[in-house]
């Protein structure tokens, strides 16, 4: 019995919980991407850097708060600073929209032109963030890091293996669930949400229904920038903040959004977990788990070596798409 429990704990500690954490982090990022895609109809390549921008502001405010001696008890101080970070990111997003994307909307440009403009924005934000905070890793986490550590768990249960639960991860998962529920409700039920979907569906007709396009766009950016900042800060708390890493997150985030069905909030969540779990489960070496279960494998029992992890998550994506060509939750086909 102990063997089984130990196997379970090992699996949870190295596969399930990390997958859950990473998945939730990707999902939060993917939500923002999918929203912009769903309403404004383009893939926003600047999302990773918008995340970095919002996080940067949060970090600066956090440092200031810490300097003032303010903290948030066991919770990270950054959560106190988060609203200001969100505010900064929203302001930035609206500014960008005003001076970049609005023009193409008026021109009724092709979707790909928006994408390229967002690449331009990505570069600019990239530069701005580095100009202000530099390219280095920044630490801003304080408060408790663990809900329970490996050692505590072992002492508590008397098992040979331990299980660690990190506070930021727990927060991320809770937030992800809350956000997706709220977003879902907002888009499906609220009048503004419906107006946003209507706008995304057919701009002209939305106009004919008296929907104010500027407002729709504004609300979209407010939500997207907030999501980006929340995702960025939670990610930074759990892992670390480095502009380059945030830029690199873009790919898995996009993969998540698309495999889930682009434009679908639920899909973004599902996609995040698919990507995360396919990375972790397929490259995990099951040797220890099997040992606890009473097998004694010779090798590592690793399906694929970790250097293929990125590739393998894409293999899964391609497979999912071959079975469901518009993603798990039937995203848009353009």
């Amino acid at each position: 019995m102990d063997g089984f429990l130990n196997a379970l704990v090992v699996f949870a500690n190295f596969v399930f919980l990390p997958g859950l954490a990473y998945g939730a982090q990707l999902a939060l990022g993917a939500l923002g991407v999918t929203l912009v895609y769903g309403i404004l109809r383009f893939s926003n390549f600047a999302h990773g850097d918008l995340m970095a921008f919002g996080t940067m502001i949060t970090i600066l405010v956090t440092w200031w708060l810490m300097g003032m001696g303010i903290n948030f008890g066991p919770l990270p101080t950054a959560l106190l600073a988060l609203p200001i970070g969100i505010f900064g990111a929203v302001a930035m997003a609206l500014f960008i929209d005003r001076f970049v994307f609005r023009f193409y909307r008026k021109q009724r440009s092709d979707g790909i032109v928006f994408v390229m403009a967002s690449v331009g924005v990505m570069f600019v934000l990239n530069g701005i963030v580095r100009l202000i905070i530099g390219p280095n890793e920044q630490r801003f986490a304080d408060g408790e890091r663990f809900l329970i550590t490996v050692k505590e768990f072992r002492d508590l249960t008397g098992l040979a293996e331990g299980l660690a639960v990190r506070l930021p991860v727990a927060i991320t998962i809770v937030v992800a669930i809350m956000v997706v529920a709220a977003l879902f409700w907002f888009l499906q039920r609220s009048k503004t949400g419906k107006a946003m979907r209507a706008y995304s569906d057919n701009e002209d007709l939305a106009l004919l229904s008296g929907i104010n396009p500027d407002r729709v766009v504004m609300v979209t950016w407010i939500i997207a920038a907030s999501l980006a900042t929340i995702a960025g800060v939670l990610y930074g708390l759990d892992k670390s903040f480095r502009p380059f890493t945030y830029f690199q997150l873009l790919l898995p985030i996009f993969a998540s959004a698309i495999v889930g069905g682009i434009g679908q909030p639920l899909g973004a969540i599902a996609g995040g977990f698919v990507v995360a779990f396919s990375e972790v489960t397929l490259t995990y070496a099951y040797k220890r788990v099997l040992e606890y279960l009473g097998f004694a494998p010779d090798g590592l029992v690793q399906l694929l070596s970790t250097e293929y992890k990125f590739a393998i998550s894409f293999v899964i994506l391609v497979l999912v798409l071959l079975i469901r060509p518009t993603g798990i939750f039937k995203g848009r086909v353009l």
Partner: protein
Amino acid sequence: MSFLIGETMRGGYGGADILNGCTIAVDKGEIAVIVGPNGAGKSTAMKAIFGMLPLREGRVTLAGQDITALSPQDRVKAGMGFVPQTSNVFVSMSVQENLEMGAYIRHDDFSDTMEQVFDLFPILKEKRRQPAGELSGGQRQQVAVGRALMTRPSLLMLDEPTAGVSPIVMDELFDRIIEVAATGIAILMVEQNARQALNIADRGYVLVQGSNRFTDTGEALLANPEVRATFLGG
């Protein structure tokens, strides 16, 4: 002076003018029908009246007020409703949501209007939850008209509302349009089912190359042999 007047409108899409000084007017409680060959500029005239096409010359007045400079969404607020000829439903939204979007600017309870629309087009009630994009061509057309009715406009503009609908629905639609007009709403529509449309029209316009060729009562136009032969298919 009529409720709505589009006066000597000129304009186009950048190249040569499509509208060459045509004038369209309709009064409250009246039905005005525009007919004409394909590409005559009928839809363009509708768009111009609705503010979706900048006019180079001429003006649009509604209830005596010059609205030439208003944006389309402001015109909606001013009481104009429009059903375009193509892509006139939100394909990814359910039928019900399409109707709700029609009522977007209304802040009162619009459930009774929705019931009325469902009475008019029973099939829509049945397909309430289906995305409009999965409807048949004629069903879509019904959604589009229903959407415009939800606004409770004082002027309703319809661009070929009966294209592709079955005769029974077309009759119902015309019936309904007559009723709507009877409540004091001005109705301006473009029709290729011209004989049926002129039959119920108070005014008819025959538009050719962006200018008025004939303007008369519906009856008179129907009776005009030249109009019949050239534009109504004999």
